[in-house]
């Protein structure tokens, strides 16, 4: 469903993505690994339109999204769960969900009731401001907010970042729940356990390119790749 070819992008004076080629099948979960600074977040932000690409092409189900504005890309069916959650601290959980639901209503299976089914903690915290939530709850809120736009593709940037292991498991379950609903996911992750638990396939980025891709089972078996590209055993 998502086709990326020769994508280059970056910031003022440095090109971070050096030509990314990526293909995502509908309904799959791809875990994207890589060391710090290899361009994982830049790739996510470029796909969302928050960073403008300098070359290459991005299409979603054949529709060209290259260099489009983030709101256009969002309406085309892409949602982002950003690194660090980026919830609106002064707004309540309900207000977050309402804001997102207004854009996604009727476009797919997700409504507020369903999101709370998937993330029950949000139901308990409805009246609370996002700034008062724990990191894990904020992450769930960011996930719920993304889902309510009824996206076909969800981009997640380090969902486990700064969370306790038990909470990471909850996030993993939520990702599983999204997958079960047929949402396609691209998950950038440093936590190998989470990545292995949720992803069908693992891709590895290095120096602004995707340099390796294999099914998760294979990747786990062959530790040489992980060792060479990630610096882990």
């Amino acid at each position, binding site marked *: 469903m998502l086709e990326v070819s020769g994508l280059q992008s970056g910031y003022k004076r440095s090109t971070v993505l050096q030509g990314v080629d990526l293909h995502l099948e509908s309904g799959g979960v791809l875990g994207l690994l890589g060391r710090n600074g290899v361009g994982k977040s830049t790739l996510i932000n470029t796909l969302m339109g928050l960073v403008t690409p300098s070359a290459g092409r991005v299409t979603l189900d054949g529709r060209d999204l290259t260099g489009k504005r983030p709101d256009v890309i969002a*309406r085309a069916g892409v949602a982002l769960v950003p690194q660090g959650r980026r919830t609106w601290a002064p707004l309540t959980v309900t207000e977050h969900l*309402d*804001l997102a639901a207004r854009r996604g209503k*009727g476009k797919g299976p997700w409504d*507020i009731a369903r999101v709370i089914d998937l993330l029950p903690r949000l139901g308990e915290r409805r009246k609370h401001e996002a700034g*008062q939530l724990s990191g894990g709850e904020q992450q769930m809120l960011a996930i719920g907010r993304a889902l309510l736009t009824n996206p076909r593709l969800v981009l997640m940037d380090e969902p486990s970042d700064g969370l306790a292991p038990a909470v990471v498991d909850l996030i993993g379950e939520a990702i599983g729940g999204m997958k079960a609903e047929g949402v396609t996911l691209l998950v950038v992750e440093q936590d190998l356990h989470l990545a292995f638990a949720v992803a069908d396939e693992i891709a590895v980025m290095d120096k602004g390119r995707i340099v390796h891709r294999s099914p998760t089972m294979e990747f786990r078996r062959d530790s040489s790749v992980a060792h060479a590209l990630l610096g882990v055993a």
Partner: protein
Amino acid sequence: MSAPARPTTPAATAPAGGSSAVPGSRRSRGRAPLRAVPALAVLVVLALVPYFVGPDETDILSRVLIFGLFAVSLDLLVGITGLPSLGHAAYFGVGAYTAGLVAEHWTPNAPVPVLVAAGAGAVAAVLTGWLVVRSDGVFFLMLTLAIGEITSQLALQLDDVTGGSDGLFGIPTFRIGGEPLRLEGYRYWYVLAVFVITFAAVWLISRSPFGLALRGIRDNEDRMRSLGYSPFRYKYVAYVLAGAFAGIAGGLFAQFNRIVNPSDAGFALSAITLLALVLGGAGSLWGPVIGMAVVVVVRDYYGPDLGGHGPLVLGIVFVIAVYVLPRGFAGLAGLGALRGRRRGAVSAHATDPDDPGSGAVPGTSSEERPA
């Protein structure tokens, strides 16, 4: 592009709002009337004030309400939408001159001048906002500053219409049904009525789904884009509304003060109003009115006794406020609310077992399915 999203919006907001009331209904049902009590009490006190104070004090209170209303219109931009305008007085000035001319040449009968002033403020904001709202950061500050100064310069230069540096003077005061409001108390009540209606309008806007989107844009524009919102439209509409409300305040001012000067569209007014927002707490709507009360009382009431040192006193008040009240007067009330909410959070924990999604979900889904 947003065409398919549009028709769903009204239908989508209603049930979403309805569903939000479901889980907390036990609590909010008891609270909503309680919350209105302080507002009603303030309203009653404000309405009765002229019986207890002299005409000079009533005059000052009218000014507090007029400039307070202007502060509310600026708060819609600064506190709700996150657009720190340095030239909002331009729309106050446009409204004031418009109402002055309408009252002089057409009719001083309420509410015609104020309504035309609202329209003029909106039109001015439609013309300028198109450009201004596309900019941000320093460019936004500079553009709004320029708009304020240009407006004030235009008022100075177009002396055939505006009376130049003498300003418009001898503007007829408010009339209701052909009867001029001669008593200070009547004038005050008219100002109060317009203030209450306009304040309620701004409050409803800030509480509406549209206002929620504005607050989302204020806190993180990129996140709103990522949800499929186009921030420009929202900011532009907010800018135009703020212009209209500023025009209403200006329109009141023209007929109240009976003189309008080019300086009424200038930077000084924008600056003291921003000061009022800082004092009162931007984003709360009522806080800036209190902030403006401090500013107006110091400047206009005690100012003459201070031998021209009013601005100095205001400066000192400002410095103290920044240190002592980082979120203004509204922050003080916010502390109380936070304490209340903590208590609420504790009780929510206590009832955890019967409270979670399980209880809320059936009610929510039954509400949402019809849409």
